[in-house]
């Protein structure tokens, strides 16, 4: 290849991000450019919150960021994290990109880097050491929840937040420092939750979703010949890549669900109709607060929300 991009990534090597998503990224750019552009993966160059600085200054060319790791910087990305959207990660990722294109990008929160994909994992669900029957059981639990919307929902449900990075979740649960964790179903396999949090409590639409972006150094992109830039922008970056990554998240969810069903002692409880309604009420407050926050950045929050809702409903 004439151009080799350096990818900086941070999850464990076996995590879907590194085992499937980056290989997919490489496959797509190679295919679109007839092998003229490729990329190599480097792990552990810096912790997650450092990635955007690294890309901005060209310490690597491409990276993945989780918006929730940088409190204060990203507000509009909370939109896709809201609970209650119908549909899987693929639908959400596509809708997310379209809403970004139409509305969210106006806030210019990713200034300094080129956004090449936006995606979310599947709806996050509750995984606990002890079985959950009702929504009310959550109050008083010590839960590992990431920041952002997840945190807001957690406190609205009366849970106590425990801050630990995702790779430490297993230890935290094993040592009972936390009673449970709210994460996508996908992580049951990757983080071995089937061992330490055998009980899965599912809320249709999820308690939150996690917002990710693939970002690229602007100079690295500008340094490519024009024909390659065009083909990458048309065939890979944006909606096509977002959709493919969404699919990988979904496949992970399904795989983990299978593992859960096969693992002895694991249970799956789906929230009752009454609890779903109750949660919708709680979620409505969170949604309103978040939409107000987004509105304050000068973005038409209501329109963006409606757009995601209708895109996902009809996906």
């Amino acid at each position: 290849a004439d151009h080799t991009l350096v990818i900086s990534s941070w999850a464990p090597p076996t995590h879907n991000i590194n085992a499937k998503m980056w290989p997919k990224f490489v496959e797509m750019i190679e295919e679109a450019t007839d092998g003229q552009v490729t990329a190599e993966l480097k792990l552990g160059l810096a912790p997650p919150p450092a990635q955007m600085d690294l890309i901005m200054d060209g310490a690597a060319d491409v990276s993945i960021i989780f918006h929730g790791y940088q409190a204060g910087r990203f507000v509009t990305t909370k939109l896709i994290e809201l609970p209650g959207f119908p549909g899987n990660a693929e639908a959400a990722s596509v809708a997310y990109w379209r809403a970004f294109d139409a509305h969210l990008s106006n806030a210019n929160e990713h200034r300094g880097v080129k956004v090449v994909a936006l995606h979310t994992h599947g709806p996050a669900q509750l995984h606990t050491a002890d079985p959950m029957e009702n929504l009310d059981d959550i109050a008083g639990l010590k839960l590992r929840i990431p920041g952002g919307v997840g945190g807001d929902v957690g406190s609205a449900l009366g849970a106590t937040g425990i801050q630990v990075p995702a790779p430490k979740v297993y230890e935290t649960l094993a040592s009972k420092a936390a009673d449970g964790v709210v994460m996508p179903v996908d992580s049951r396999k990757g983080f071995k939750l089937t061992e330490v949090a055998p009980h899965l409590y599912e809320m249709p639409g999820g308690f939150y979703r996690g917002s990710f972006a693939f970002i690229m150094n602007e100079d690295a992109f500008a340094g490519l010949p024009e024909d390659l830039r065009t083909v990458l922008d048309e065939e890979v970056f944006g909606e096509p890549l977002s959709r493919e990554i969404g699919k990988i998240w979904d496949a992970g969810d399904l795989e983990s669900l299978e593992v859960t069903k096969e693992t002895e002692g694991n249970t799956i409880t789906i929230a009752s109709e009454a609890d779903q309604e109750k949660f919708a009420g709680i979620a409505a407050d969170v949604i309103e607060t978040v939409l107000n926050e987004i509105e304050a950045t000068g973005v038409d929050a209501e329109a963006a929300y409606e757009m995601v809702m209708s895109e996902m409903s009809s996906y």
Partner: protein
Amino acid sequence: MTVALIGFALVLILVLLRMPIVFAMGLVGTLGYAYERGGSIFDTRGLNASLSMVGRQITDTAQDYGLSVVPLFILMGLFVNKGGMARELYAVSNAFLGHFRGGIAMATVAACGGFSAICGSSLATAATMSKVAMPQMRRYGYSDELSTASIAAGGTLGILIPPSVILVIYGLLTETSIGKLFMAGIIPGAMGILFYLFAVRWTVFRNPDSGPAGERSSWMERLVALRSVWAVLLLFFLVIGGLYGVLDVHPLNLTFSPTEAAGMGAMGAFLIALSRGGLTLASTFEVLKETAFTASALFAVLIGAQIFSNFVNLAGLPEALIGLVTAYDVPNFVVILMILGIYIVLGCVFESLSMLLLTVPIFFPLITQLGYDPIWFGIVVVVVTEISLITPPVGLNVFILKGVVGDVSTGTIFRGVTPFWVVDIIRLALIVTIPWLVLVLPDQMGALGH
């Protein structure tokens, strides 16, 4: 690969010119990274990229939550010192072992092992025990060789028997579980005590005058001595028990992450030292200050190591090494033997931490690629590091002892310590050939259930 090797050679040269390790690794890492990104060390874009990486390493390493165990474990060790617990441990082991030939040296080894269980540093273990044990052995006419060697060697146990600062750093560099590493250190650590006891016996067998028998303690005296070590046992139980969920019983429900275990241990040691009147405001400040200095130096060196490791990673050295091994079809055990050989040679001249920082980024990817267990490799690295502490010409524990005792030559200590590192090599061989010794406890831990 060539670039990375040149970088490695440059670090060695700078380090030998006595440039502090953080600057040697930081400088070479920065320039190397710039070279990899920009094609030249003078390329503006490459330097800009590299400095961004360096800047983030500086700001992120100090904010790494997992690393907060480092100052807390150091703090615990220093408070333990003030609490006089080393003296009590020594009194107990002496009451049980002192009347054997070489018994006081054996008691020293045992007390070092006990002290290691609450102290995370080998240097601190050696420094503390030398103040307690040295006068006693002199009084009973022990040879300088045996008395200093038993302390220097016994001190090395500090980084293998948990808690251990070196294991924490290995865990952070390689993203392996600190809890499991601690668990894995227990059996090799216990083997270390036994083997050192054997080394003492061997020394007095060769030269009976080197370690005459002391007085036999009555059972009454032994019981009295035993009663005083409750504090050490309590601390060990609190730290290690909490880490493994042993204290997870109603209504206590005490389970800790490594950071919390360190915090609880430090607080426990503080309260014990306080209750024994060993602490004033001034001496508390002194302990806090020393901890901060040590932590600061450790963090600095970690930052340097990570900058260098990023350069090596970007330059593709780990992949190149793996490629070499596969291309020449080198059997796995030969690779391990070569790595161990490199460690033992480096260990002769390098200080423990620098050796770990220099080598782990290079060897770790290779080892895991070959299918070896990261926990097992961590213990192997720590055992070779322990050996490096007492091998000539640079053996840090030997120098510490020379510093504390004063009137003994380093040559004498190195002579005395020879049987100890010989048994260390045997122990290393056992751990390498029977990984079960290392892995049985951490594997058990996964099955603890929860």
